């Protein structure tokens, strides 16, 4: 089966972007807080302001990827799924939540805060916002940028369980004061894959080859960032009909 890469969305500590901005993608130290503070989803998502930062960043990257693929608008719900890989997941939210319990007593726990102590909760938000009802879950492994989640998404399409899938990874690193080193270069990168969308140029074909090797545009890739770094990632011809936001100015999505 020929499966196309239809859209890319990403968020880092300071920038957001889509496929056409892939050249601007770079991991930088910091926190998602800076990137997500000024995000305004269009149309608005009432819960967005109450989400934790890592969920906001992951949701924003998914929404950008769906917009990049031309799949953001909907009247009827669609069987599109989301598979997200992560290592640290919502660890900072977990620790903040439990610190509140210790500080104020268990009876003061916030149900809203508790809901975001699952790394998969943002997938529920994305499903609500984008009207998508396919399989949604999180894969937790040491190497978040490995291709496990993408491979499972490709398999889901190959088995006919969804026409399109969103696959990617997010990680906010180790929360302070436990660690703030190389791990804390937060990112959320999501890809939309599936059958080509009429009127939209895809970025190229993704296929699984012998022994699980994944190829993008015919070349083997070994992690998700290889796709963003593919050379040439986008020809001018491919990008001519694409719209994206300024990768350096988070704002209205």
């Amino acid at each position: 089966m020929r499966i196309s890469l239809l859209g890319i969305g990403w968020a880092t500590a300071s920038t957001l972007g889509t496929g056409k901005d892939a050249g601007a993608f770079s991991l930088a130290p910091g926190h998602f807080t800076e990137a997500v503070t000024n995000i305004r989803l269009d149309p608005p998502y009432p819960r967005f302001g109450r989400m934790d930062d890592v969920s906001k960043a992951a949701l924003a990257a998914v929404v950008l990827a769906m917009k990049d693929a031309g799949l953001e608008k909907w009247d009827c719900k669609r069987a599109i799924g989301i598979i997200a890989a992560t290592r640290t997941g919502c660890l900072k939210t977990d620790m903040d939540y439990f610190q509140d319990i210790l500080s104020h007593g268990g009876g003061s726990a916030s149900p809203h805060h508790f809901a975001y102590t699952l790394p998969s909760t943002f997938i529920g938000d994305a499903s609500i916002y984008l009207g998508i009802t396919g399989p949604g879950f999180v894969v937790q492994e040491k190497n978040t940028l490995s291709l496990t989640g993408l491979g499972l998404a490709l398999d889901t399409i190959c088995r006919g369980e969804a026409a399109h899938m969103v696959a990617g990874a997010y990680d906010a690193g180790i929360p302070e004061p436990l660690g703030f080193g190389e791990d804390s270069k937060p990112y959320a990168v999501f890809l939309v894959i599936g059958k080509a969308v009429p009127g939209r140029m895809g970025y190229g074909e993704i296929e699984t080859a012998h022994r699980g090797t994944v190829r993008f545009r015919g070349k083997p890739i070994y992690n998700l960032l290889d796709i963003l770094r593919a050379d040439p990632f986008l020809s001018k011809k491919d990008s001519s009909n694409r719209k994206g936001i300024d990768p350096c100015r988070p704002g209205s999505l």
Partner: protein
Amino acid sequence: MPRVWVTHASAVTALGDTLDATWKGLLEGKTGIRRLRRFSTAPYPVGIAACIQDLDPGDSRSLIYDLIDRAMQNLPPLPKDTLLITATTKGPIDLMERVCRKTETGIETLLIPHLVASLSRKLKLQKSGFNISAACASSTVAISQACSQIALGKAEAVLVLCADLVSEFTFSGFSALQILSERPCAPFDRNRNGLSLGEGAAAILLMSPTRAKAEGLFPLATVCGWGVASDAVHITSPAKDGKGLIQAIKQALNIAGFSPDAISAVNAHGTGTVQNDRMELVAFHTVFGDRRLPIHSIKGAVGHTLGAAGGIEIAVSIRALQEKVIPPTTGFADPEPLGKGCIFSEPVMMPPGYVLTTNSGFGGVNAAIILGKGNAS
């Protein structure tokens, strides 16, 4: 129909350390939900849960390792190329609590990938594997992915290890959501008023028939179909019309190549919350029409074991297929109107056919598995 064999299934619950003990307790209508002593419940209006009393943290310092070790007892020798998939929502959450209390240091061991890698090393597997987190449907989603990998020929053997602990962390959250029952939960009872938390683990070994035969193993059961779907309605409440669960069940039926008539019993998620149980009955009624097939939940006996629930329930469903008996729904007495003639407080004979087992969770995730009988004695 894809053929995936279950060649081993074990479960550890508050009813006992083996599937035999859990099965016996279920048939006797026992409950493991008791007064909680692991932490002070003074700040909370509810003080019960289904805990395993003698878990030992040992050198690992988290109870989850002992819990999983118990589930792995009596595993057959595993092929080195077995893919390991764990299913847990919070993993070593007790360690994280102690880090917050500053009685523990070190961050790496808090992370679920560390747990997965540790288990993989212990089992001497070639690859590390990964965890699947899908709220209270984690196990069911993990088993569906395991089956998909086998059906596609990408894996020949997959071990799914499912586990979650009772902790103050999760207890406080469910208490804040005001969905903890003051008495042991009563799934599908018209007077139910919430869930009871529990802890437990399961080990489910899945294989292609070819590989199982080569390993000298026989099927306890066959996984015939699986489905996963999202409600896209609410983060912590299920869709009232059950559409996500209906979609997951229909997908499982489609993969199996079955009509709904092939299903002869349902092991439901049945948490005991007003909204969940009503949603499930609406979904089952939509799929199966007026047919009164037996539906049961084990959560009144073992509590809601969160990410482990689906694995434990699949192990119990396999035993139900073998014994041709549906266990009672412990705690249930007076049915919801839609559940009349379907829910039982005593064991009932299972009609010939297949068992559907379902789970749903936060984020609106739903998952369904269809099991058929195997031929292993």
